[in-house]
């Protein structure tokens, strides 16, 4: 599903150049659930942003679902993002003046899906994350966990192949975090590939594979026995 070879990325900050990714080689198969771990500054978010085409690498190759991702102009990147990828951010990034349902509908608007169909599908995904009754609420009327679940529904509504989550539990308490991981695990069970950036050990252990990043290189890549989040959720 995802193939990365010798990926480099550096940021120029004033006179200093910060070499963030120093040659990453990394494959992800369809249906995997991968945790990318590392301390802050290890390059894990940068890696995720490049995978999400929100940022571009300096060198190296990136293939997504057999499509080489290179020389993308903004328009193509937008189409790929819309077609293949779903995003979940630490800070939710919901549009504050739209209701939960309208937020979930938005990716379909950019796919030019008809309004009725948009509404139907968005409602379905909202229900799948357990927020059916909250459809008409605005983000500021929802709790953190609910906001993140709206974001997940929004990421899923365009039926992406890969879901990228950047510290999805970073702003949530432990209980809510586990509930959210339960949602993510059930999504993974439906065959969607998941990449989750986190620095929390227990969250990482709920994935099927953990990749450790340190100073811009992969230092460890291991399969783990998945801890089911459902056992923590009543």
């Amino acid at each position: 599903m995802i193939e990365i070879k010798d990926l480099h990325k550096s940021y120029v900050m004033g006179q200093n150049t910060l070499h963030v990714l120093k040659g990453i080689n990394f494959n992800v198969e369809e249906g995997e659930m991968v945790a990318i771990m590392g301390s802050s500054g290890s390059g894990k978010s940068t890696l995720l942003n490049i995978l999400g085409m929100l940022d571009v690498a300096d060198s190296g190759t990136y293939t997504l679902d057999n499509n080489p991702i290179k020389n993308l102009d903004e328009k193509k990147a937008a189409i790929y993002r819309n077609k293949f990828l779903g995003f979940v951010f630490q800070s939710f990034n919901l549009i504050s003046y739209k209701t939960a349902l309208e937020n979930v509908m938005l990716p379909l608007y950019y796919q030019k899906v008809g309004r009725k169909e948009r509404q139907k599908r968005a409602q379905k995904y909202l229900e799948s994350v357990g927020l059916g009754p909250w459809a008409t609420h605005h983000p500021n009327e929802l709790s953190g966990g609910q906001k993140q679940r709206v974001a997940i529904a929004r990421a899923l509504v365009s039926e992406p192949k890969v879901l990228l989550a950047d510290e999805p539990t970073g702003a949530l308490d432990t209980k809510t975090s586990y509930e959210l991981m339960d949602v993510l695990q059930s999504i993974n069970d439906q065959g969607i590939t998941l990449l989750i950036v986190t620095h929390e050990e227990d969250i990482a252990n709920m994935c099927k594979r953990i990749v450790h990043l340190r100073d811009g290189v992969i230092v460890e890549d291991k399969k783990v026995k998945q801890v089911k989040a459902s056992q923590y959720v009543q």
Partner: protein
Amino acid sequence: MFSRDRWREMFLTLRKNKLRTALSGFTVAMGIFIFVLLFGFGNGLKNAFEQFFVDDSTNTIWLYPGLTEKPYRGFKAKRRIIFRNDDLVDIQQNYPFFIEYVTPRITRGALVKRGKESNNYTIRAVGPGHQQAEKTLVYKGRYINEADVIDKTKFATIGRLVEKDLFGNKSSLGKHIDIGGVSFKVVGVFRDEGGDNEERLIYIPYTTRQRLEKSNDQIDQIIVGFRPSLGHTGAMALEKKLNTFMRKKHNIAADDRNGIYVRNVAADLKQTQQFASILQLIVTFVGLGTLLAGIIGISNIMVFVVKERTKELGIRKAIGATPNSVVGMILHESVFITTIAGYAGLLAGVGMLALIGDSLEEFFIINPYISTNTAVGATLILILFGAIAGYIPARRAAKIKPIIALRDE
């Protein structure tokens, strides 16, 4: 552009961001409103100006007799020049191809009585041509005519306000009035664009006046109406010829500045028109200034709006909005708001002008108006610049990588 979904998305955004919508709309509406108002005032000023200076006929040459300052051909200085009826005939006969009419004017004041009502008015004794010279509009009855002059009739054509003063709301036609002790029959009533004073005049035949004044044949001044086809150059030439002719006839030295005075309205008109075009220039300048202020206002708002929405645009891009759709969305919104608000401002401005009407006449603003073309043109310019002002920051925002836009808190 005409996709229903796109409109729906836009309306949703506008409705959910009422303050922002109202703010940008208000800027545009205000800009157009002030533009229309100022431009209208400018036009009103121009109208007032024209009414003061251009209400009389423009194809006339006025001859006034004076007191000579130089001895000439055996005549002493300080001789009073007197125009007589034969001057009228001579001018008419010498320049028949240039002249439309010649009329004398003898001006006297008199107490005019009608029953218990009485008042002092200016009485002008004139010939029929005088109606054209003053652009007098007779709306009841008739003006003094040729037959009146020949028969020395005691007929009078009176101003609208004279009738109102003396007769109240009743018609004066066919009734008699007492002018300085002599009874005259009212044969006509007139209006005049020149204002109230011009409507407090009474016209009688000049021959009647002369008979009342011991049957003399003296004239105060002569008004010559020339053919408009002469143009400015022709008028100047005629003025010169008339001047020379009258000086010769009345034995006035060619360089005597006081013996006779000739005023050519055509020459005055040129000055007047120059002044009017300067006024027009000022009006245009004020209008452009206001418009510029409006453009700057809407540009500021648009830059602010796009800045405020950077994060939202980043989110939209992360979930699949193409840069073009982002730019399109912002433009669509800005053009929509400026169009609606511009139209509202336009209506408000035009309505305000209509409401003001002639109530500012004492400040020399008469009938302020703005032509439809100017108003609509100004609105279109503002819409265009609103779009440009939105486009530049929108394009920049669309180019920002979503990750940077998302980081923007």
